[in-house]
């Protein structure tokens, strides 16, 4: 499946937006301007962009604590997201959710999630809705290698396989769960192997290569849409920064990280390929960079100028009907 130049442009804009958003929030945390628990997904941008390139608003994505990239790729407005991080009333969740709970159901974003593994059955549920209501949509769970050790993962895959749900399980294997290397806690070499227990289709993609993820995600999402069942798609990637913003990273050998950061940066790999093959011009990418920088700067400014919620809103929306 070859992406058209239009798709490539959108994908690059998505990846650049994710990168800039995350870089900006790290800067803001360092300036003491943002509170709460924040997790950046720098290094993993290609996966979100490539998977979501195949999705429409009526397709649902569930995400994780490291969810900004998935939200951006699924079309959640970055202004609202930035305002959410600042806890303003103009935030995606009116300041009530914060980084780990950014959600936009209308955009098909079922939410970042503070509970590791919790999103996996949620996407399975979205796939069940799609199947029973024949919406033509799919449910896509984005989650980490660490989450694949949760019962919620195994139970969901089993159910989806049994019911042949239009679901796709995208595991972003970044080699780490917090401060613990994946190989310490996962006995199989590839997370994808786990699909076999459920007689489920599986694939492995190079998560740093937009083109590879795009092709494979395209294939398995189409398969799910056709009614041919779910897939576990493992994308090999790396978390360029710490587990959380502020992580001192003392547990990780620098040479390991440098290897990925210097040689496997998904944005650089993308640029080398599209310019090398004459698919997009470097000028074109630079103007996207500028446009994105402007958008992020503007989002920060708007967020900082926006009001906080009023304390009287505390008890709003606990129930549909009080």
């Amino acid at each position, binding site marked *: 499946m070859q992406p058209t130049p239009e798709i490539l442009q959108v994908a690059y804009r998505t990846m650049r937006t994710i990168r800039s958003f995350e870089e900006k929030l790290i800067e803001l945390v360092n300036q003491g301007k943002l509170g709460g628990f924040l997790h950046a997904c720098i290094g993993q941008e290609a996966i979100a962009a490539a998977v979501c390139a195949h999705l429409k608003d009526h397709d649902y994505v569930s995400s994780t604590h490291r969810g900004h990239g998935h939200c951006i790729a699924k079309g959640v407005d970055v202004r609202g997201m930035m305002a959410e991080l600042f806890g303003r009333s103009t935030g995606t*969740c009116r*300041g009530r*959710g914060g980084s780990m709970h950014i959600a936009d159901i209308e955009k098909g974003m079922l939410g970042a999630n503070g509970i590791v593994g919790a999103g996996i059955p949620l996407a399975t549920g979205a796939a069940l809705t799609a199947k029973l209501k024949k919406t033509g949509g799919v449910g896509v769970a984005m989650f980490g290698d660490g989450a694949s050790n949760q019962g919620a993962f195994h139970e969901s895959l089993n159910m989806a396989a049994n019911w042949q749900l239009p679901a796709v399980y995208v595991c972003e294997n970044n080699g780490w769960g917090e401060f*613990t290397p994946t190989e310490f806690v996962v006995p199989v070499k590839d997370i994808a192997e786990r699909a076999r227990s459920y007689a489920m289709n599986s694939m492995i993609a190079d998560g740093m290569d937009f083109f590879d993820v795009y092709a494979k995600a395209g294939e398995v999402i189409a398969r799910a849409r056709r009614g041919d069942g779910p897939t576990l798609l493992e994308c090999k990637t790396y978390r360029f920064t710490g587990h959380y913003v502020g992580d001192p990273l003392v547990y990780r050998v620098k040479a390991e990280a440098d290897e990925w950061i210097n040689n496997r940066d998904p944005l650089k790999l993308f640029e080398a390929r599209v310019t090398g093959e004459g698919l997009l011009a470097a000028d074109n990418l630079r103007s996207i960079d500028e446009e994105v920088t402007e958008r992020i700067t503007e989002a920060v400014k708007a967020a900082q100028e926006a009001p906080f919620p009023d304390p009287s809103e*505390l008890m709003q929306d606990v129930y549909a009907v009080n």
Partner: protein
Amino acid sequence: MSGQSNQPREPREIPTAFAIAEALRIAMASDPNVILMGEDVAGGGRRPEGTDEMGGIMSVTRGLISEFPNQVLDTPISEMGILGTAVGAAVTGLRPVVELMFMDFIGTCLDPLLNQASKFRYMFGGKARIPLTVRTVTGAGMQAAAQHSQSLYWMTAGIPGLKTVIPSNAADAKGLLLAAIRCDDPVVFCEPKGILFLSTDVPEGDYEVPIGKAKIVRVGSDVSLVGMGATVGMALQAAEELARDGISAEVLDLRSLAPLDEDAILTTLAKTGRLIVVDEATPRCGIASDVAALCVDKGFDFLNGPVRRVTAAMCPVPFTRVLEEAYMPSTARIVEAVRSLI
């Protein structure tokens, strides 16, 4: 306290997190059956080229893997597996201490506590011992939002067979944790965010704070402020403020939520005739309500006015600072409650 002498000693102020680590060190050194299990309790520590600097998300267990390589177990992110395994290990001869990173995560692993550990002794005709401790971080105030800020000890305190304790300072944390680990019942040990990094004077050596005993932490005569965990500090501050207006508040630190030290509560109520209970948790079905009910049920004749509950709001924990502040109990709200009584 064992090993105490009458010699005055230099105070040694250390944060609660360090006091907890001291208790773990003492427990593991004194009993090889004590094992520590949890996510990232060692972090990258077992890597030949790595370090043991992390020690969990709150760095409480930093360095323990080097000292106790056979007793510290890093686990996968599998809370149901971790808790269930710990219960099985406890009933067969080990004395596990599980770190459940945040109490909010109890949603993923309630069964081993709710239907297994808590019921074995009774259900098996008194023929089981379940020496299990679950350490878990509770409380709001760090903008950690709806799934990392809850104080769910009311849930575990409400399960017969489970004990639940919550220290308000570093010294009690050490003594209560040692008591919890050595107890043959399953104990949930809460680590409130509000006190984890606060320092108090902590005795050296091995000592236990008995489970089930509350403690008067400030003597007073006009009103009783009953707190637990981080709310004890709030109550003490409120008492300080009230003292300036000539109101004398007594502060009782529950320390143990299950069992509940009913005598201590009724004794202070008998003394002051007015009681306010301050709880970081949501108000329904909780510790504050239990204390209030106790006062009405068994302390009715002592009461000179209503019992007031100062608690969190009955909603999920909001992220943004303004709402999180409105959500949480505070010194100001305690003072206000006292003024409504006196």
